[in-house]
C-alpha cells in the first residue's frame, strides 16, 4: 500500500535527521570547546613556555617542569595501575564465576564512581602522612587507584566480546586454559583493551583533586619520586584562581598543551599496538 510506504519513508527520514542532528550537536560542543581552548591558549605558547619553570608575574616563565611532572605521574600511574587493572579484568572475565568475583565486580564499579578527591584524601592518609611529606609517589599512586577500576572493567568487557568459538577452537587443540587466555583471547581483545587503557589515561591525566593532597605541585624541575612534583592540572588550577591576566593566559596555554599531550600519547600507543595481521 502506497500510504504505508510513504509513512515508513517519512519515519525513516525523521529518525535519520534526528540522530544526525544529535551527533552533530555532540560534536559541535566538543569542537567549540577545543577551538576555544586553542584560540585562548595558542598566544601564550612559545619555546620558553614549554621548557622553563614558572616565574613571578610579569617575568614570563613556563610549564616545563609541569609537563615533565605530568608525564612522570602518568607513567607511574600506568606502571602501577595497568598490570593490576588488566589482571583483574582477565580474572573477572575468564575465571570469575563465583561469589568472590561478583564482590570484586561490585567493588570495582563502586570504585569507578568514587569522587576523585576522596582518593586524594585516602592516599594523603596512607602515604603522605606516614612519609611526612608530599611526594610524586603518592600522586602516582592516587592516579593509579582511579585507573585500576576503569581498566579492569573495560578489560573484562573486551575479553567477554571474544567469541566463545575461538576459546573452544584453542581448547580443542589441546591448549591449557592459560595458553588460551594469553595466546588467543588477549591478542583478540588487545585493541579493545588498549582503547580502555587509553580512556583511563585520558581520564586521570585530567585529574586535579587527587594530586592537590599528594604530589602537591612544585616550582622546580624534579625527578625524585619522594619529593613534591608539579603537574599540568595543578598548575592550571593555581594559575586559573590567581588574579593575574598573564597567569590566566598561561593557564589556557597549559590546558592546550595538556590536551595535545593526551592526543599524542593516544596516537603513539595506537600506532605501536595496531593490529599487525
Amino acid at each position, binding site marked *: 500500500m502506497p500510504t504505508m510506504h510513504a509513512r515508513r519513508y517519512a519515519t525513516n527520514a525523521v529518525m535519520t535527521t534526528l540522530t544526525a542532528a544529535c551527533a552533530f550537536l555532540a560534536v559541535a560542543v566538543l569542537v567549540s570547546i577545543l577551538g576555544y581552548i586553542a584560540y585562548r591558549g595558542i598566544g601564550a605558547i612559545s619555546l620558553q613556555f614549554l621548557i622553563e619553570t614558572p616565574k613571578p608575574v610579569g617575568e614570563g616563565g613556563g610549564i616545563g617542569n609541569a609537563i615533565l611532572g605530568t608525564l612522570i605521574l602518568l607513567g607511574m600511574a600506568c606502571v602501577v595501575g595497568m598490570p593490576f587493572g588488566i589482571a583483574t579484568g582477565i580474572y573477572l572475565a575468564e575465571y570469575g564465576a563465583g561469589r568472590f568475583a561478583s564482590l570484586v565486580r561490585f567493588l570495582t564499579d563502586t570504585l569507578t564512581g568514587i569522587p576523585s578527591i576522596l582518593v586524594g584524601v585516602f592516599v594523603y592518609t596512607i602515604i603522605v602522612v606516614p612519609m611526612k611529606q608530599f611526594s610524586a609517589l603518592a600522586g602516582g599512586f592516587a592516579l593509579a587507584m582511579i585507573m585500576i577500576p576503569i581498566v579492569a572493567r573495560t578489560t573484562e568487557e573486551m575479553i567477554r566480546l571474544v567469541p566463545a*568459538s575461538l576459546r*573452544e577452537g584453542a*581448547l*580443542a*587443540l*589441546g*591448549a591449557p586454559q592459560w*595458553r588460551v587466555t594469553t595466546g588467543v583471547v588477549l591478542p*583478540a581483545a588487545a585493541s579493545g583493551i588498549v582503547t580502555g587503557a587509553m580512556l583511563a589515561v585520558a581520564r586521570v591525566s585530567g585529574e586535579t583533586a587527587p594530586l592537590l593532597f599528594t604530589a602537591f605541585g612544585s616550582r622546580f624541575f624534579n625527578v625524585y619520586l619522594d619529593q613534591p612534583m608539579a603537574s599540568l592540572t595543578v598548575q592550571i588550577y593555581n594559575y586559573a584562581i590567581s588574579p593575574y591576566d598573564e597567569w590566566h593566559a598561561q593557564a589556557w596555554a597549559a590546558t592546550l598543551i595538556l590536551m595535545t599531550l593526551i592526543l599524542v600519547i593516544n596516537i603513539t600507543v595506537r600506532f605501536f599496538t595496531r593490529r599487525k*595481521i
Partner: protein
Amino acid sequence: MIEPRAGEQPAGQARTTTAQAKVSVRDLNFFYGATQALFNISLQIAERRVMAFIGPSGCGKSTFLRTLNRMNDTIPGTRATGEVLLDGEDTYAPGLNVVNLRRRVGMVFQKSNPFPKSIFDNVAYGLRINRLTTNKTELQDRVQQALEDAAIWPEVKDRLKTSALGLSGGQQQRLCIARALAVRPEVLLMDEPASALDPIATQKIEELIVELKRQYTIVIVTHNMQQAARVSDVTAFFWLGKLVEVNATEKMFTNPNEKLTEDYITGRFG
C-alpha cells in the same frame, strides 16, 4: 605418519568388535544441570572409518560428539556418567589429562573459527603449544603437510603470512581442518562442518573427509542425510537423547532395522 591400511575393507562393516574399536562408549548419560541430555548411550567407533551421527535438532548428537573429547567440560554445571574408552583407556577417569586427550581427539566446529592470526600461525598454533616440533624447518614442514592434507595448500601457499580472516568461508573451514590435522590427532570430530558452506565448498569438505579416512578415525555430525550417505561407513541415529540405531550406512538408508529410523530418513518427521 600412519600408513593407510592395506586392503581396505569395503564400507558397511556394521558390526565392529571391541578389539578394533577406536572409541568405545558404555552406558553414557549426560546432564546439563538437572536436565538429562543423553540416555544410556553405548556405541563402538571403528578405527579409520567415518561414522555419521544423524537426528533432529536437539537430539543430543552434538552433545554426544563433545563428550568424546570432553569439550562439554567447559560448560559449567554439566555432568557425565558411564564410560568413554579411547583405545581401552577411560577418558573420564579422574586425574586424566584432558589437554592430552584433546590433542589425540581433534575437533572441527560448525562455524569456522580461525584465530585472528596469520594462516601460518593458525596451523602452527597446536604444534607450538604442544611443542611437537623441535625446529623451524620441521614446523614449516608440518604446517605445509597439514595444509596439503586439508586440500587448501595451493590456495594459501603464497599468502601464509596474511590474516586467516581474509579467507572465504569454505577456505576458513578447511584451514580449521588443517589446524586440527597439524597435531596429528587419532580421532577427528566434526560438528556439522559444512552446514554454513555453499555446495561447492561442501563438496570439497566431503571429498576431504573420504580422503582423510585413510589415516584418521572420523566422527561427523550432520543434518544433511545425503551427506551422511555420501561420506560415512556407519551411521548412528539419535532421537531425544537416545541412540535409536547404529548400522552400516548403506543398510541404514535402504533398509533400517527400526521403524523410527525409517520414518526420520524418509522425512516423516524431524
